[in-house]
């Protein structure tokens, strides 16, 4: 077999590349993310999941709720959800809500959920 340096968890489509970039920006990561890496294992938490839902909804013009981020916490799984929603053209989930000044919340003390 020919040796290969293509990693098995590299993004396989433009959509997955975009999702990886969104994950990296939200999580503040300067390193490679695999499509099977879990958003929450990489340091994601509830507030960041809300941010992820909003960015994904905006970027792919589909409605993704924060619950979906909890249920599909990898790039691979989210890609499947987005593709399905695009095909179905459904809008069954509400767009999550992020008030202005959300970043200030991170400076509000206490544990991060």
């Amino acid at each position: 077999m020919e040796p290969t340096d293509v990693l098995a968890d590299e993004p396989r489509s433009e959509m997955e590349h975009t999702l990886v970039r969104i994950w990296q920006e939200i999580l503040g990561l300067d390193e490679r993310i695999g499509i099977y890496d879990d958003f929450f294992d990489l340091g994601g938490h509830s507030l960041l999941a809300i941010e992820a839902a909003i960015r994904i909804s905006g970027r792919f013009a589909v409605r993704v709720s924060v619950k979906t981020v909890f249920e599909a916490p990898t790039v691979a799984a989210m890609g499947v959800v987005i593709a399905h929603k695009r095909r179905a053209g459904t809008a069954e989930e509400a767009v999550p809500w992020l008030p202005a000044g959300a970043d200030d919340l991170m400076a509000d003390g206490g544990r991060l959920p």
Partner: protein
Amino acid sequence: MSRGGSPLLVVCYDVGSVSPTRMSRIAAEAGARLAFVCPPTAHARQMRPVLECHGAVIDAGAYAGVRALGSAVSALHPAGIVTFSERAIELTAELAAVLGLPYQDVADIPAIRTKAAQRERLRKAGVENVRYARVNRLEHSDAALAHIGLPAIVKPDAGAGSRNTFVVRTAEEYRSGLAAVLSGHRREHELIVEELLVGRAVPSPWGDYVAVDCMSRDGAVEPLFITGRFAPAEPFRERGGYTPPILPAAETERAADLAVRAVRALNIRHGASHTEIKLTEEGPRVIEVNGRVGGWVDDLAVRSGKPSPAAAAIWYALGRTPGTGLGMPPASCSGTVYHYAAIAPKSATRVRALAGLAGLRALPGVHQVAVRARPGQALDWRDGTCANVVIAVTGATGSHEELSALVRRFESFDWAVFDEAGGA
């Protein structure tokens, strides 16, 4: 109580709580449902989409007072009430009183929530006696220092997360520190100046204090979990904890006994409490008591295979006993579990760049490196611990020596660049 079906637990939710996902899992194990009562705060509003994934959400701000709120909540027939948020303790007590559910007495809340009232209660109970004074104006502050003496520590009278907290060793540090926190948009309205309890010398990175989490049920108080703390970052910002602490068994018992006496003195009759204990040459002394599960504590307990304080709080609030046994873990064992918060230097005003986190993640003993302050985020030491955590690192090591070496690596800060006060 709940009418048929599964019991309903009311959670007064606000900043600093255990994660809703974690609460939801515990409630599911207990066969219970959750309803979140949210005060009208920015954090609670922000978290609403997440809370709605795990239960009903009740907006406390929509009701004209606690009695009206209680009437609405009572229609759900709750079986219990609990909070994991320092800021929601008072609301929880008031709502519990209206609902007739077990929680702390409203009359005890000042001693549980505010430091001066707590010091007074502990003094009267003969548990602890520390010189203190309240300060709210710079021009009155010298008299307070004359009464307290140096070294001293300054804290908000009601606060959490090391916000606007600093140690002073000279009168000049005291005056400049007070000027910084009694002015500006982050100003405090009421501070307490306390005699600094001087801990015994311990090598870096270990702190000279521990925290004891206790669980109360109908006034019976039981120590549940003890956490070693890392030395705080300047001027006094907590860096997280580890278990087990480096503490002889006899001293662990003395610290736990003192925590139990302090919790009893404050009349924390139901649920969780978190008591910080200074380890001095003369023995353990009470730093402060909080009427909730301590930050990082539940995560440390779960990852070290010990009884979960969050689970105990939820089961107890439901009037039940957790399936897993309670009780303090052994004082020592091989290996550690830790949660380390890398705090930006006091002079840092903004995160300019983060690079090399992959290198930290690859270190043996590191399980997760979570970015808490992304590049561009403004920093201010006065905002305390959480607002100045750049990365939160969790993991486990085979020994305290290995953990010490890891912390030295985190604290090298070769993975971060900051803008500094007065700099570029």
